[in-house]
């Protein structure tokens, strides 16, 4: 299992569009990808789950990846968050 923390800088938070591209990105991995904000955790491959977290700008999320391709996934996801969120 691998994880990283990230503070969202997109002024609108993880709204519909970023949630959409995140889900697309996460769906590309064999590993499970979870996103946690506070006490709520969602499957990052499910758009309703991700949007349901209601992540706003300045809030910290933890991304947890577990599975066969977790090394590639964690590195790519971290870059993805920096680039898009």
């Amino acid at each position, binding site marked *: 299992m691998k994880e990283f923390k990230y503070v969202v800088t997109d002024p*609108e*938070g993880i709204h519909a569009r970023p949630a959409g591209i995140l889900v*697309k990105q996460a769906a590309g991995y064999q590993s499970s990808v979870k996103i946690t904000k506070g006490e709520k955790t969602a499957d990052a491959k499910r*758009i309703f789950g991700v949007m349901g977290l*209601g992540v706003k700008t300045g809030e910290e999320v933890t991304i947890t990846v577990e599975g066969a391709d977790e090394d590639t996934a964690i590195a790519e996801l971290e870059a993805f968050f920096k680039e898009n969120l």
Partner: protein
Amino acid sequence: MITISGKSVFGGVAIGKIMFYKRSEKSIKRTRVDDVDAEWQRFQDAKNIAVSQLKGLYDKALEDVGETNAMIFEIHQMMLEDLDYLESIENIIRTQAVNAEFAVATTADNFSQMFAAMDDAYMQGRAADVKDVSERVLDILCGVDEGVQEMTEPRIIAADDLAPSETVQLDKEKVLGFATMYGSANSHTAILARTMNIPAVIGLGESLLPEYDGKMAVIDGFTGTLYIEPDEETMKVMQEKRAKDMEQKALLEQLKGKENVTKSGQKINVYANIGNVSDVGAVLKNDAGGIGLFRSEFLYLENSDFPTEEQQFAVYKQVAENMAGKKVIIRTLDIGADKQVDYFGLDKEENPALGYRAIRICLTRPEIFKTQLRALYRAAVYGNISIMFPMIISVDEVRKIKKIISEVKEELKNEGIPFKEDVELGIMIETPASVMMSRELAKEVDFFSVGTNDLTQYTLAIDRQNSKLDAFYDPHHPAVLAMIKMAAENAHAEGAWIGICGELGADLELTEEFLKMGLDELSVSPAMVLPLRKRIRECE
């Protein structure tokens, strides 16, 4: 005449008859099914049709409103294929042995309630998206056609609210405007209306009645007003407003993407002046080549204490990103004189125009200056930012500024915070001293921007607020024009470029003269960008 006020989401005036948007009525009944596998399959077939319809809508939207706005239909597809959504539907069908329609309607209610309960206006608005995609599946399951209304005549579309898919499926050629009872400025309908250049007013509330269907109406998208059966006077005013707006839009159509070049081939950049983040929309709408003056004062004037580095960084970054690689010239703090802020604790002065203001504050209170510079250098990573300093009178000031900048960069480097090393630097030419010193100053900076309002007042020694002096005041005074010419020659002699960001830049009587002086840029209010660009193309 009935007048209803709402919220404007897109300017423009629409005049025409109202068509009240009607949806195909369907009532969802709960019925028992025996073969739950077949029912689940029936749902999946309907869902697959819905997804392929959404793909078609995505392609249509891509063409009409661009990729960013079309993305909503891709998100709608994701919603329909979301496992939580599908599991809920399958679960209801299987455990309750009920029809797919009931399962979809129940799931749609639950999911949209989840959004409606969130403490965030934007997410609350997403409840409409869930309903929109679910409606599509329900229409297919019930065998009703999608409810796209055939329009034979151009109409103002009125509705309680319009789903994104409904907006995009309307025949654009025949839609004069949108008027809705509900909806938010964040709704995709609002965004799509803006991108499709259709006047739209939302939030008109329950006073917008279905019985207005077929009645004559006017939307004033600038004020957010809907007039039902307008009287003669209102009609006349609105027709004029509409004509003026159309003229501006026609100009845009004609000039969009074209170079600013005179008949003899001389080129000049036309940028826009802004005073707040919210003005960026107007800059893009008027197709300006960049932002020639972003006054950073609003950050200080709107706050009750010094704006933090993060606050400033977020604003500069947003503007740079929105301008997507186009130049954004940000002027550092220009407080003092007529712009006073309590928490700066400035003394009252006898002669504030000649007093403690702008760069003079920054150089004596470097902690304020450094916060702004740090935010600017960090934000410069995200776009094409240039920095400009106001009220310069000497080379020594510029050297002091550069020394502070090198300290700021050193600090950022040591803290491991990303910033742009090489940011274009310029100064305002607004004092006669800076004109006289312009040859030396040009060696120190990349560009000049002439602030003609202050330069005129300091050169002529005329206070523009004093109406008794009107007889002596000549906005085209040869002394001022000679000042600009001198600064331009000296800038070019040292390889710097020069522009104007004051009111004179928008004076179409002087455009030809400025071109002769060889100015590289004119920055004017967003509304003046297109008329100025037109004027340039008429010059020899």
